[in-house]
């Protein structure tokens, strides 16, 4: 009895994964060949923007620059000041920025673009404005990015059934030291004995 029952299942166990595997193997080929026919070879810089979810635009307040006078960065970071790609501790300028954000593995030019300082740079080379910095954060913090997009991570205001105002990640998490900083609590309630 058990033998007979298992036999048909065994066939499916073999055939179905095979079909799935073939499908998986075929689909990227199909996509690649399609893009080869119609488009010039895809530039690295355009890939992230092709992901539909990143084309979603979230209305947020402007990014909270600590020193707004320093923006646009290109006022200093221009032709007169060629970028220094050497990883180092900054001493002449921006020395107040102490990176406490995976500092063993990261430094300035992992997120800031060497050639165009007015933009941020994704890992794949795409330049994004500071207003869309959530895309940059989402590269590593994918689960939090997903929650944020759904309205579950981060502060929301507005209408529960209508327009909602989002905040950028950096409104609560300073990008160079993202841990949420402790704050002073509001007054404690009075113990029952002290309520008159």
């Amino acid at each position: 009895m058990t033998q007979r029952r298992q036999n048909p299942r065994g066939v499916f166990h073999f055939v179905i994964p095979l079909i799935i595997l073939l499908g998986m193997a075929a689909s990227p080929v199909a996509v690649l060949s399609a893009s080869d026919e119609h488009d010039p070879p895809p530039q690295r810089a355009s890939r992230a923007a092709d992901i539909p979810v990143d084309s979603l635009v979230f209305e947020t307040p402007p990014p909270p620059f600590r020193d707004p006078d320093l923006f646009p960065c290109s006022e200093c970071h221009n032709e007169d000041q060629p970028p220094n790609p050497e990883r180092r501790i900054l001493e002449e300028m921006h020395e107040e920025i102490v990176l406490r954000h995976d500092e063993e593995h990261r430094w300035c030019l992992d997120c800031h673009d060497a050639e165009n300082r007015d933009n941020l740079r994704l890992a794949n080379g795409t330049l994004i404005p500071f207003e869309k910095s959530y895309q940059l954060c989402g590269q590593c913090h994918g689960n939090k990015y997903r929650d944020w997009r759904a309205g579950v991570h981060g502060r929301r205001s507005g209408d529960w059934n209508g327009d909602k105002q989002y905040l950028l990640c950096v409104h609560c998490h300073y990008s160079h030291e993202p841990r949420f900083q402790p704050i002073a609590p509001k007054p404690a309630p009075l113990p029952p004995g002290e309520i008159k």
Partner: protein
Amino acid sequence: MNEAISRRKFICIAAGCAAAVATGCSDLTHTSWFRNNFRDMSPEELSSIIADLEKKHSATFGKTVTVGNEPPLPGVHFAYALDISRCVGCRRCVHGCVEENNQSRDPEIQWIRVLEMDQEKGIDFHHANPYYDPELVPQEGHFYLPVACQQCKNPACVKSCPVGATWREDDGITVIDYDWCLGCRCCLSACPYGARRFNWGEPGLSVEQMNPKTHYLGNRPRMKGVAEKCTFCIQRVRNGQYPKCVEICPTGSRKFGNLLDPESEIRYILKNKRVVVLKNELNTDPQFFYFFG
């Protein structure tokens, strides 16, 4: 209509006048003495009572006070979720709620209580401390659990009320008709979450503190001797807004939405996060979920 005054109406008016004279109250009207429970009121009676209330409160507080009576929205069942892993215990919600909902400042009444708990002990009400007051929060080794009305589907407070002054609306909010409340405090002792508050004294609410946008079943000014509690900011949520505590929370721990909408934040949380309700064993079926983001 018959111009002649009915026997019943005559007795009512006569009794009202007698009561007004006996108590020395000059602003008593027929409507305030012989009104029905909110749920039994005709639209005419409700609108005349609301007009009286608006007039009275506007005079008291010297600004235009509106008393709304927005009904539950069809197809809406409100639910709330709070991220315990993110709350830092700053009590912005507690004080934002007081400002929004016209709680008495003196004697102090607050609808939200933030409990400081030991991480070693987990959710443990016996060792919780609501009176913590360090310079900065969160404190090492602690987590924070804000508790307000859990808007139970099976509310003990409603069952305990001897006069039907509190009930659960169709959108899931348990409300109180303050004018119908006896002040017996059965609901305070019935609620397993300690979410109800009682006006032991004349509520102290100054002109500047008063929020003039009110709802009949929510944040309209209360009187001495009645119970009150969180209504999910009924005056806001029935107009589409988030409750005040959701908007004010600096960590974004507080989430609110329509349980019947599959796209809502609440449904996302129930689907994707680990969720607990408080005192599940009591079968109160809270519509207030705590989750771990």
